[in-house]
């Protein structure tokens, strides 16, 4: 019995990277909640941490840090226009199975230099890897273009950010970076992942949740619209009629 337990434990350790435990990341966020209020116009999140070591600083290439903040994963329909009978029409479409609504990667050096392709594949760190697209329709041979378009459009909207060299590391121990969340943020459970890499390989990773929520009036209106749709519809109409009547009455009074 004891022997079996020991062997499973040993097996578990054997599958872990050999150098795990040598360097560990401890990190925190300046805030664990982002409240979307009526005057929300974006927010800066400060991410900071330290590397815990039990052994002396290893030889070789320096320690690098990658921070990835991701919004909830949702499917997206990507459509492409082409010219049909002289006018531009949506013709082809690819459904991307899941793409983060927000995705920012901050690194301490150019991403391709501090992360190998295999490690990227394993941990899904870079933006193209964070998007999952399988099974484009057979009529579309260039589904890669659709994923690229998705990244391009969201990068323009500042929803996807690649911030290379923005993580500051001091003495290979302390690090910090700041990620700005844009004003057109959607709510949900965001995750912040922090990776330590050496020579392109991930040494340790840390993950924490960032709660992005509408609060106050925004929350009340959103819930009402979805849970009491009929009431909400009437409320909108009453508001419209009252405003129209009010303005008319006010102007009539002004004239007399």
């Amino acid at each position, binding site marked *: 019995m004891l022997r079996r337990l020991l062997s499973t434990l040993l097996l578990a350790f054997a599958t872990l990277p050999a150098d795990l435990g040598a360097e560990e990341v401890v990190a925190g966020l300046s805030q664990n909640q982002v409240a*979307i*209020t*009526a*005057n*929300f*116009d*974006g927010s800066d999140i400060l991410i900071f941490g330290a590397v815990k070591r039990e052994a002396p600083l290893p030889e070789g290439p320096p320690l690098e840090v990658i921070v990835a903040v991701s919004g909830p994963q*949702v*499917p*997206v*329909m*990507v*459509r*492409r*226009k082409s*010219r049909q009978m*002289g*006018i*531009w*029409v*949506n013709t082809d*479409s690819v*459904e991307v199975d899941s793409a983060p*609504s927000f995705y920012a990667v901050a690194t301490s050096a150019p991403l391709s230099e501090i992360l190998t392709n295999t490690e990227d594949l394993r941990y899904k760190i870079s933006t193209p890897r964070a998007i999952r697209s399988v099974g484009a329709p057979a009529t579309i041979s260039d589904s890669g273009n659709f994923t690229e*378009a*998705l990244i*391009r*459009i*969201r990068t323009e909207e500042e929803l996807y950010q690649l911030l290379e060299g923005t993580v500051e590391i001091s003495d290979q121990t302390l690090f910090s970076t700041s990620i700005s969340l844009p*004003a*057109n*943020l*959607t*709510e949900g459970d965001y995750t912040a992942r922090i990776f330590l890499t050496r020579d392109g390989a991930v040494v340790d990773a840390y993950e924490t949740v960032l709660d992005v929520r509408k609060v106050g*009036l*925004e*929350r009340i*209106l*959103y819930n009402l*619209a*979805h849970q009491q*749709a*009929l009431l*909400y*519809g*009437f*409320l*909108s*109409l009453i*508001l*419209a*009629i009252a*405003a*129209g*009547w009010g*303005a*008319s*009455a006010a*102007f*009539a009074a002004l004239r007399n």
Partner: protein
Amino acid sequence: MQIYLPIAEVSVNLLLLMGLGGLVGVLSGMFGVGGGFLLTPLLFFIGIPPAVAVATGANQIVASSVSGVLAHLRRRTVDMRMGGVLLAGGLVGAAAGVKIFNVLKGMGQVDLLVTLFYVVFLGIIGTLMFVESLNAIRRAGKPGARVKRHKHNWVHNLPIKMKFRTSGLYISVIPPLMVGALVGVLSAIMGVGGGFIMVPAMIYLLGMPTKVVVGTSLLQIIFVTAFTTMLHAVTNHTVDILLALLLLLGGVVGAQIGTRIGTKLRAEQLRVLLAGLVLLVCGKLALELLLRPQELYSLAPLGAG
């Protein structure tokens, strides 16, 4: 000053929204059009998601139309009986239009169809109105030239005649019912009040006097857009009450100003201006279809929220 909209989930400038509402309100009061054909594309332009723009635009039009119609009621330039007949046709048309819309949505290409509808209808109506009112202005300029008010056409030979005292008409109810139904169908498909179609139809087809047309059209628009708003609120949850509030704060004030401007201008001048505006929007939409877009790809989130 920025404000985050709870349903649209974007942050926009407060004053920009109120200004947009005001501009559309002025047009609404002047011409008796809801302004939806202008407001909805403008909302797209400032980054409001299309579904939210269409639904909230309808709600805003309710407000500016109420404001406008009250001003007309005080001046007794609303033909209640004609409004009732148009509305009866309108509700039937809107119900049919919603069905058509859903069928097209199932086939995809609903965006294209809406744009094509806009281009075709705005183009035809704008051109007709422009030519007609320019001729009217030229005629009015010549002394001694007589303007024939009532043209006798097929409309006057149909059965079930009814007296419309405010409009000074004694015509069959069939043409107004048909106009109402057509507008209902179009407003459901295009997400607008339909004033830009109804106003010319009332003037040219039914022969109603221009000063009655605007108020009567607004009356009909209130009911059609209220119906559309409810439909969107219940089925798609895309009415943004905060966005509507800001738009209508500007809109209701604008509508009052527009009504005042409208009474100061001559009917022909009013029609030339409206025709010019309709053609402008039509031209812009046509260019979008004909020119190669900067970004060929577009995104639509699925199953979100």
